[in-house]
């Protein structure tokens, strides 16, 4: 049988595999689907009856099991990813509300959790979006007040430099000595 017109059983199996493999990273998914497609096509070509094709597909096994072998099922970046983003958002909000004693430690936690979530996502082949977002939010919550604080410091020190000059420029009326004190 030519592979251009695939046997319905084979087509159904490969469709089921593609669905199960959807959670894998693209390159891994493409490789697995390509290899199994080759296998199925070769099996169909070698088959002498529909029973042969069924036996071949049964022997291949459950697509979910094959995908599980490729990458154990796990949430894309684990609960820590969602938690990290949430903490990052809270930290930023608190920063804008100038609650720095709370927002800064929270921002640090968000960054740490974000780094952990990214590493976990890389290992299980999930996406690192949440971890990256958490790091960005946490960084903003620290950098923005830090910038504001340094600007505040420089304007404060500038106003201190002005004060000695005003002593010299302001004209104070000097009281004239009375004639009785003059020799």
């Amino acid at each position, binding site marked *: 049988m030519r592979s251009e017109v695939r046997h319905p059983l084979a087509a159904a199996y490969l469709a089921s595999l593609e669905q199960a493999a959807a959670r894998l990273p693209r390159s891994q998914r493409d490789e697995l689907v390509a290899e199994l497609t080759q296998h199925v096509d*070769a099996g169909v070509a070698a088959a002498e009856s529909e029973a042969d094709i069924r036996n071949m597909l049964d*022997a291949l096994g459950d697509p979910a099991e094959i995908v599980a*072998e490729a990458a154990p099922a796990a949430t894309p970046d684990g609960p820590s990813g969602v938690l990290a983003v949430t903490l990052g958002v809270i930290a930023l909000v608190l920063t804008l509300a100038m609650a720095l004693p709370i927002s800064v430690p929270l921002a640090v936690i968000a960054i740490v959790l974000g780094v952990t979530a990214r590493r976990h996502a890389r290992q299980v082949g999930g996406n690192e979006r949440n971890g990256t977002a958490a790091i960005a939010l946490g960084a903003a919550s620290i950098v923005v007040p830090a910038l504001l604080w340094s600007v505040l410091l420089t304007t404060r020190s500038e106003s201190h430099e002005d004060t000695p000059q005003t002593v010299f420029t302001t004209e104070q009326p000097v009281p004239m000595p009375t004639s009785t004190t003059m020799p």
Partner: protein
Amino acid sequence: MGPAERLTSQLRKGTLTYCVLALLARRERYGFELVRTMSAVDGLVTSEGTIYPLLSRLRKDGHVTTTWRDSDEGPPRKYYAITPQGLADLGAFRVEWRRFRTAVDRVVEGEAHDEI
């Protein structure tokens, strides 16, 4: 899955990699051919499809390489070949496996009058 099946499954998981390497050590093979050879050995493989992720891991770890070759019988085929690193690992496994197999047999199959 009953206890006996679970046990066999564990044993299989540990050794399947080396069975694949041993077949490739003899000569390079393409996927379909390799899988069929393995499933011809009774009790070795349950889900043939899981051999493909295993092959992918072996390639990523540097134990096998892949090459596409044209085929008279259809589309080009992806051939798997063992690397020097794969051969080295297979050799190490052989030593360990023989030792382990002998030890287990000795205890499990040992006669009542043996020293243990």
